[in-house]
């Protein structure tokens, strides 16, 4: 009897082993690196689309260094031009030229309105903020179940659908601790940006909290680039234009 139980257990373990073979952390790191180099610059157009079809567009210049440093500068429209945002880990600031001094903002606020919040706009590497709970396979995709490392992260849970071959996300669901869906990001239009960077150029999002509204990010000129740490400081926020 004992031998039988041991044999069945061994069989179950051996059947399950292909799933255990997927190293969730390594897979997430690969997804992060495929989405962007660790340090880079890029341009993004952010479009908020209302149910009526009315649109509002923002153009941002973004620089990132390492896993936890991101800064963005608004270059259009005229009403937002010169505004800049900075993220150092969990710290976020907004610099409005008229106000002059950077003010602390929170990840759940949105400096642009619409479905994207500050955490989406100043996105860090997923591995910096999340642990992989488990990985499932579904046809040509992996499904990664992520849990926030700390309470300060904007979304408590993420569910990432990633293409098995390209190791790039196709869809991400952002959830609360109670599994309530906050928003869904759709990654589209995989494009070669040069320098070995091949990634989705369009991210669309919708949210059950904003029925009928949609926001879109379009990426351009994603380039590997290194910056000094001093670029990611409050004092430098008003000088981000000099990096372009």
């Amino acid at each position: 009897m004992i031998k039988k139980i041991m044999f069945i257990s061994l069989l179950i373990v051996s059947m399950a082993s292909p799933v255990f073979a997927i190293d969730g952390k390594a897979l997430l790191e690969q997804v992060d690196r495929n989405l962007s180099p660790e340090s880079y610059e890029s341009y993004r157009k952010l479009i908020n689309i209302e149910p009526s079809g009315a649109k509002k567009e923002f153009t941002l210049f973004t620089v990132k260094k390492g896993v936890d440093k991101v800064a963005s500068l608004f270059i259009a429209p005229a009403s937002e031009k010169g505004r800049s945002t900075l993220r150092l880990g969990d710290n976020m600031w907004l610099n409005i030229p008229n106000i002059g001094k950077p003010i602390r903002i929170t990840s759940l606020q949105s400096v642009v309105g619409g479905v994207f919040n500050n955490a989406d706009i100043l996105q860090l590497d997923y591995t910096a903020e999340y642990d992989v709970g488990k990985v499932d396979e579904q046809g040509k995709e992996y499904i990664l179940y992520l849990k926030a490392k700390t309470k300060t992260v904007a979304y408590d849970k993420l569910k990432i659908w990633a293409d098995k071959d390209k190791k790039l996300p196709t869809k991400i669901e952002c959830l609360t601790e109670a599994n309530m869906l906050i928003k869904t990001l759709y990654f589209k239009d995989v494009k070669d940006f040069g320098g070995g960077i091949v990634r989705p150029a369009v991210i669309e999002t919708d949210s059950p909290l904003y029925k009928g509204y949609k926001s879109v990010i379009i990426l351009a000129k994603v380039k590997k680039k290194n910056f000094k740490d001093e670029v990611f400081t409050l004092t430098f926020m008003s000088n981000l234009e000099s990096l372009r």
Partner: protein
Amino acid sequence: MKRRWAIFLFFMLWILPAAAAAEETYTFDPSETEKKPYHIGGYLEFKPVLFGLDRDSAFYQLRFFDNPRGYNLLEANGRIQLEGSYEKSIFRVYAKTNTDLKSSYSGESERSTFYELYGSVKPLPNLKFDVGKKTMKWGKGYAWSPVAFVDRPKDSDDPEQAMEGYILATADYIKSFEGPLKTFSFTPVILPVYDHVNNDFGNNFKLNTAGRFYFLLYDTDIDVMFLTGGSRPDRYGMDFSRNITTNFEIHGELAYFRSFQKSVLDINGNRHAVEGDAVSYVVGLRHLTSFDLTTIIEYYHNGTGFSVDEMENYYSLINRGYNIYQTSGNEAILGNALQMAEGGYGRASAMANYLYVRCSQKEPFDILYFTPSLTWMMNTDDQSLSLTPELLYTGITNWELRLRTALIAGRRNSDFGEKQNDYRVELRIGYYF
């Protein structure tokens, strides 16, 4: 002057329909990201204001004693701000002009000035020098910043307005680190006060020195600053700001003024100078709920402000001067009171203790770019207050529409109770280009 107003209004009306009609499919043309060495932009504003006058208040009597008005007063304001910069290599020149236009019972007026005009050199990514007219805007407070030693006082009624700078020379040196201290920066400032150079800053023929040290230490912004040189009493300060959670921020400022002088009135209306050390501080928080309600709360202690008794003595002086003017036409006392208003009694937040609460709800009822707010400011010494409901809409690209009403309440001889208005209604139409 009328012609200038006509051009201004024509321009505002001409661009409004053009912006409303502008709707197109989205594209991302790489040329949109090309950087030009120069930038030209600006801001136009039209702001009609209706004042409901409190004809028994001290400040009404002081302002309108020789030209009494009815219960309402209508005023039209215009603002033109032009901004330009040119950048080449490590050099940059920046200019921002401001023109205020006003049409009211007293006629039309115009005031133009450079808010900022300075040149920058950036020899290293972490080192920059600026020389010219510039706003520094130190401090972490939203409505008040007692540590903004080299700036003009902030308008707590509209803290996000652009401000005029001072002529100075400054530098920024930044250093980043690994560990609990992530960033350090140092900002020295030299601010001269001579004839025609910053002569409204303080005592003339002085070369003032100021500085700010910034630390990002244990995820907390900390600044330490000073000002010395003789144009104003020496002062030292510090501020901090920290996120407790993702949606909860706290901040504070502390300023110490050495041998601060002010001119106060005694019970008999005699003016005398008082000198002593003073401490001012602001403590505040900013909180965001899950349903996007942002609350800002600040408490301000103005150590250089006037006490309840000192303010009551000032209101008595105005009342006495007004009665004498009514009976004899003698303006001497009111002239004296006007001088004292400019010297401090008439400035905003002139007394010692204030509470500021602002609640703004982002996009209620799923109306995108619409933010209604309510601001409550109270003088905690005499419990007089102002309540300002506000509706803001920014849904049309580059346009900003704001409707606000300020309601003022307070007994006689109180801070807000003696303001010239009972209420104020204003519409602000702003266009960025």
